[in-house]
């Protein structure tokens, strides 16, 4: 009898797993020139990627006039055919902090700028994603902006959502978009401690239980990027993108002192950055196991599977840290 019950339980679990559709694999493309390398192309093909989230431009403030403007708009050197493109606009929170911001004007300009890029490159879009780390102080402008942008663009909208915005959604409110994308990274403080600011399970667990209560359906963005934190005299002096640990290990000016920490033994220039003797470089990376851990935790704490897992970000430099087929394995956890 016990065996029958056990079998029944397993069968139910199996059936319920079967009923949940696996999420699709997508990527963010966050560089200013859209140019896919053969490896990046290959990654998109082998993972049957259909949707690409391309950062079109940032909205920042002109220093002198404090007026919003589109910063570093994307330039296309590779065709985007074969992919559904979702333009992503990153709006700096300081733009939304301006109490006198003309929200409608910004919505119209942002939409027009996206249209200009699309018509130039013959890109047809169904959806636009807005990325903004809004705060309580900028909440009102941001929510109004989303309302206005929805009307102006007449497109499906999605918005990135940070963990704290999910936990405290009653306070931070929910932008009126069709779906959210939970940014499951940038969790911690960029600091000289031993923690990883990109992903820290201890921090994540403080928020995980809130996911089920979030009223907006959301997909999930997972990190595959890494960076280095350059430290001088105990103070952070900058973040260094695309640091190759392998290269550092082969460079006699960098000595590995503990896991992912290097000490600079001789002043030198590397990739345009000056590393001074006695500086330290702390690498923050995401291992394959981290991705599995994230996927399992998220699976356990969400009622519905996300439709998509979007990896941040598509770059040959990031891809080389992971074995081929890893992204599919991560998706299989859902």
């Amino acid at each position: 009898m016990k065996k029958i019950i056990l079998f029944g339980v397993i069968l139910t679990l199996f059936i319920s797993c079967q009923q949940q559709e696996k999420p699709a694999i997508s990527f963010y493309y966050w560089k200013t020139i859209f140019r896919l390398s053969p490896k990046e192309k290959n990654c998109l093909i082998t993972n049957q990627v259909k949707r690409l989230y391309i950062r079109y431009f940032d909205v920042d403030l002109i220093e002198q006039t404090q007026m919003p403007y589109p910063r570093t708009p994307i330039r296309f050197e590779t065709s985007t055919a074969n992919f559904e493109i979702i333009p992503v606009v990153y709006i700096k929170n300081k733009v939304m902090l301006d109490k006198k911001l003309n929200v409608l004007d910004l919505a119209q300009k942002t939409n027009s700028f996206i249209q200009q890029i699309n018509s130039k490159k013959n890109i047809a879009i169904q959806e636009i994603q807005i990325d903004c780390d809004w705060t309580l102080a900028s909440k009102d402008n941001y929510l109004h902006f989303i309302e206005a942008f929805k009307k102006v663009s007449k497109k499906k909208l999605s918005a990135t959502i940070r963990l704290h915005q999910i936990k405290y959604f009653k306070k931070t409110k929910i932008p009126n978009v069709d779906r959210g994308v939970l940014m499951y990274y940038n969790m911690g403080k960029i600091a000289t401690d031993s923690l990883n600011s990109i992903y820290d399970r201890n921090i994540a667990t403080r928020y995980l239980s809130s996911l089920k209560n979030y009223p907006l359906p959301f997909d999930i963005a997972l990190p595959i990027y890494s960076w280095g934190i350059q430290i001088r005299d105990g103070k952070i002096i900058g973040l260094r993108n695309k640091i190759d640990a392998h290269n550092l290990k082969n460079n006699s000016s960098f000595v590995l002192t503990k896991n992912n920490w290097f000490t600079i033994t001789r002043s030198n220039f590397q990739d345009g950055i000056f590393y001074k003797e006695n500086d330290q470089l702390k690498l923050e990376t995401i291992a394959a196991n981290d991705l599995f851990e994230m996927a399992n935790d998220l699976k356990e704490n969400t009622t519905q599977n996300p439709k998509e897992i979007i990896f941040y970000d598509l770059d040959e430099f990031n891809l080389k840290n992971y074995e081929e087929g890893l992204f599919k394995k991560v998706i299989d956890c859902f």
Partner: protein
Amino acid sequence: MKKAFLKKLLIAFSALTLLVYGTIYACSDGDWGWSFDSNFTPETFVDKSYSPLFLSTDVFYGIGYDTEHLTRFNSENIKDWSTYLEGKIDEKDLTFFLTDSSSTDVADLVVYYKKGKSNKWTDKWNKKIKLNDSKIKDFLLFLNDAQIVETYSTQKYDSWNYDETVKPEVLSDLNWIKTLEKKYNETKDPFLKNRYWFLIIKANFYSDQQINGVTFFNQTEKTVPKNTLYYRALAYIAGIEYKQKHFAKSNFLYSQVFDKCPTMRVVSAYCFHPQEEKDWQQSLSMTKIKEEKAALWAIQGYYNDEEKAIAEIYKLQPKNQHLDYLLTRLINNQENKIDQSFKDKTVLENKKRTKDSIHKSTINLVTKIAESDKTAKPYLWNVAAGYLETLNGNFKQADKDFDKAENIMPKTTLAINQVRLLRFVNNLSKIDQLNPENEKTILADLSWLYSELPKNAIENFRYENATAWSKNYLAALYRSQKNTVMAEIFNHESGFYDNEKQLLAMKAFLSKANKTEIEKIGATIYEIKLADINYFQGVKATFQNKIPEAIAFMKQADGLEKTVFYGNPFLGNIKDCHDCDHQAPQKKKYTMLDFLTIIQKMQDNTAKQVDLYNNNLLLGNAFYNITHFGNGRLFYEGNIAGEGSTPDFFRDPIRDMITNCSLAKTYYEKAFMATKNNEQKAKCQYMIAKCERNDFYNKKYYSLNLSTWDIQDDQINFIAWQGFKNLKANYSKTKYYQEIINECGYFKTYARK
């Protein structure tokens, strides 16, 4: 919106921009970096042309970022042309031609020169200048060419127009550049020839064949005078080399511009950017003379390692002037490493911590150079060495260094004050235990620092850090000498007055007549006055219901007792809404002292059993209104208690005092005992319920210091207080009960349950 489009920068730094973008984006407005805890004013001895390069949290010190892309050479251009034209065009018109929107005038005048036909512009200008003068003609012809190049170099674009943002226009008519070369070759006048030479390189820089600029430069360079135009051209060549990814060459050229053209120091420092170590080494190997090598180290030191740069330059050329600015950065950087907070540290611990945070190699290098007397400004090195010795604990040596500096330095106001400040820091640092003898060594400087300097600002002089530091230092000394009053005087602790003994000690100190000199200085700068303490005592006595005592304290509050309540403090409404009470019409306004006097009168009445209901009810209202929940918060706010809109703004004892409604409740209960009808009873029960409600908030949230977010997230949304239960059970037929139902949704919810 139009935005100046600086193609030069775009071209020169496209790679840099990407990288910076990546970094800044990742930082997402993070605010780490250096702050300025400085006693060392870099402006004191260093030439002005270096000031943007002083240590700063911005890209450039003082200016934030470079804003002079279009105007940097305006005045020099006007001066040069004015000399050439021998005053044939007055300065106003020349300024118009060279820096204003003159291109239509110039183009039409050029048509006149070419076709000989007069037009409306010739009529206009003929009245002011002799158009047929050969120098004027040459000027205008040149200006027309220069303005054509300017259409490319100063392009403006609509940042919300995608096409314009991604496609800056470049000069593609290479034949036109050839015509410039022809003019250059044919021109005999050296001034004009020099201008055309520069214009050709500039035109090539903004063309689609930049490399032609390098060829032309290489062919002609030797014949050209080494003036500003030469270094401006050299900067364009450096930009082209950067674009060609010839980083070593580019950086080498920028270093030469940095060295020889002070006006372009900001530009060249910004553009200098080695990619890999080998670029830097190659740049070094390109130098032929010591001066060139020193220039490379000087520009590299701006971004990176001042100490190494100073050591290298000193070896090459001890009198090199770039050493000055690098030294100020080195000292400012050392200062920034010091934790000056004192926290719970003694002065000895703090001095050790300071000493440990200064690089020994820095001290060794600076003292070695200072001792050598080989630099161009030895006094600068003596001052810097003296300061480092102070930080390193060698106070006697510091004195010697300052003496040496003072003997030879130029006696500018800034220099005199700078040395005085550093001597003061040194003198105070010598003191481990205060006594009447060593106090004398700092008294004059303390008055100067705390009282004189704030009144007589000296441009750029950094003295505020010494002010804050010395107060902390003195407080730490007094703390270790168990003099709590003087420790508080120099470092105010918010909780000091919560200790009655300390409060009385401070009152005695502030009141005493025979203060020592240092006590006088302390009393002058101390932010809390005797009146504040008396007022605070008055408030505390009120909350303790010791009204006669409170009145006595208030009368010594030096006018603070005359502060007027915004609303009527005897009101007791259904709704706690202080804004409504403040805006309500008020026949009489009450001062703090009026308030207490009336309380006293009512208490006298209750003692005599006069009108017990009304007197007790009003006393309840009065004590209710001066709590956090009432309309008279102004009563408890002050320099000592603090101020704020929520209880968590206040320290624990004050928070407990101002959120406690039990005194008010006692009076409401007394009033209830004296009621004569159900209306009165209903009112008292409701007032008691308000106190119960407040007590719930105190225990549940305020006393636990919970954040607003935690409070918001709490699921509790309804509680029936005893007062509510009594009201519903016994007084639901009263008029007052209906009023409550109408005004208080909370109660309505309960009543309808």
